[in-house]
């Protein structure tokens, strides 16, 4: 007997919940062969605004957690990702038209990348921080602190899961909260990632994912005064110079697109969304 298809209509991920777009709009997600895969929510500027509010609320708790705790929570996310490996492989394959092998390779690499960054959570400060040499009876210490709310435009059009993981994970490591715009044409793996995040120990609002038009939402995030940093990894196709100009008006850290489909694992990506705090302390009070 033939079963009826059960087409899915996905929603956004804001503040740990899955709301519909405030605009009520959705768009069709098509597979590489043109088949209908699902409906995804088309986020509006107000959804972006709500996501920033949720992220801002989450910053203090997430950045205030111990580095060890953040590492554990992120590692747990990797465990859950691994548990859903088959689903991610199917989605990536159907959506991007990859061979089974390439799809598996992408998902494996995404999980490994997540684990790699999770491991840095309680090590990054030792490496990037410093006891500075001074000519006096003082300690002078520099430590990296999270920038705050980071808006991310995920890479568009290639390796949707890995591309997203490679930009979201490094921002999370030090305690930032993230608002990410998923790959517009291949949002399914990003949506499944949010289902993983929602059932992990990650506090609500630490990651918020918007699906829909990057060109439509990115300008609102770039100019939003309550967003502290902007990762334009997937904005190469957009008018990213204008985004950078809008960001400058509200004093943001901006990471311009570097031309790669997938950001390479690096400490620089972690460091890009930190601010260095330097403190003096006298030695003589001992």
């Amino acid at each position, binding site marked *: 007997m033939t079963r009826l298809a059960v087409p899915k209509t996905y929603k956004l991920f804001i503040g740990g919940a899955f709301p519909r777009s405030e605009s009520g709009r959705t768009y069709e997600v098509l597979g590489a062969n043109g088949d209908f895969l699902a409906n995804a929510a088309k986020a509006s500027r107000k959804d972006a*605004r709500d996501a*920033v509010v949720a992220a*801002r609320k989450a910053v203090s708790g997430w950045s205030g957690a111990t580095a060890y705790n953040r590492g554990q929570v992120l590692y747990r996310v990797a465990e859950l990702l691994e548990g859903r490996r088959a689903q991610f492989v199917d989605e990536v394959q159907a959506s991007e038209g990859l061979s089974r092998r390439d799809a598996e390779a992408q998902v494996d690499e995404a999980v490994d990348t997540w684990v790699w960054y999770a491991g840095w959570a309680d090590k990054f400060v030792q490496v990037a921080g410093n006891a500075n040499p001074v000519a006096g009876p003082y300690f002078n210490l520099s430590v990296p602190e999270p920038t705050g709310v980071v808006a991310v435009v995920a890479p568009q059009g290639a390796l949707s899961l890995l591309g997203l993981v490679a930009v979201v994970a490094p921002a999370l490591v030090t305690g930032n909260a993230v608002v990410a715009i998923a790959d517009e044409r291949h949002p399914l793996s990003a949506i499944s990632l949010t289902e993983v995040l929602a059932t992990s120990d990650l506090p609500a609002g630490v990651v918020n994912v918007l699906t829909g038009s990057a060109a439509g939402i990115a300008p*609102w995030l770039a*100019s*939003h*005064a*309550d*967003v502290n940093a902007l990762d334009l990894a997937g904005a190469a196709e957009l008018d990213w110079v204008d985004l950078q100009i*809008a960001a400058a*008006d*509200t004093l943001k850290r901006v990471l311009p697109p570097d031309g790669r489909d997938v950001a390479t694992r690096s400490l620089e990506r972690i460091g890009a969304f930190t601010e260095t705090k330097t403190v003096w302390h006298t030695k003589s009070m001992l």
Partner: protein
Amino acid sequence: MTLDLARTVVGSELSERSLRAFALGLPGVDAIGLEQRAASLATRSIKTTSKRWALDTIISLIDLTTLEGADTPGKVRSLVAKAVLPDPSDPTCPQVAAVCVYGDLAHVAVEALGSNHAGGGGTINVAAVATAFPSGRASLRVKLADTADAVEAGADEIDMVIDRGAFLAGRYGEVFDEIVAVKEACRRSDGSSAHLKVILETGELATYDNVRRASWLAMLAGADFIKTSTGKVSPAATLPVTLLMLEAVRDWHRLTGDLVGVKPAGGIRSSKDAVRYLVTVAETAGERWLDPRLFRFGASSLLNDVLLQRQKIETGHYSGADYVTID
């Protein structure tokens, strides 16, 4: 004089018995209808120039409030600075209607306001809470002394709480007499009088019927304003309760020609909420009530949210908490 009016409205000499009969004789509130009416008024969408007007109106209706046990003179002075110039980046931003503080800090607010004080050539009033705020659990003697103190310290408005215990026990005459006595204590030596806001603490009154009765009792006793809540009890101000109180002042106005104000307080934190209140005021009591003399918001964090919305309209992009002052 006011009591003559009360006698006319009640239709007999004022006594525990007659007030009780009057209050219990008020028509019952249709709770479902009230909540649906409030919900339907809350759906109205206010955009662009109307929104801009609404935001400025909200600011001009705010009683900027700090009522914490940990309040210091410094905290009150910074509150006053914010009341005088809510948005330092925009001098066209209107000032708030009043600052609301505990009675012992009223003199600090008056001094800090200086020429911005309503009594000193400006427009900002000083409101002080009195009568053993927030519980109201003290003897009448103490409550009157509390009120007289605040008036002497320069408060232009007194926010009193009713004795909810007496009200819920059905001793309406006692509640009435107390409001009358406090109103008397608001009188200054020069014969003028501080405005009296009567806090019903609707969160403790249990039913809409009680809110209606308490509203009428307060108006009969000469309240200049009826106020929903102290902000210390949850639920504080809600839209249906405010709608009900607006109906009471509207009916009172029709009956007597007197204008009584309404002040929802507590729990109104977003501009969106506040706009809903404006709509409700305009649709219930009338646009005449959209005036600091007849409507106020008791709020503290609301002001920052309104300022963020104003900045959004001004700059075209969303603003953030880093661009307004910390309370």
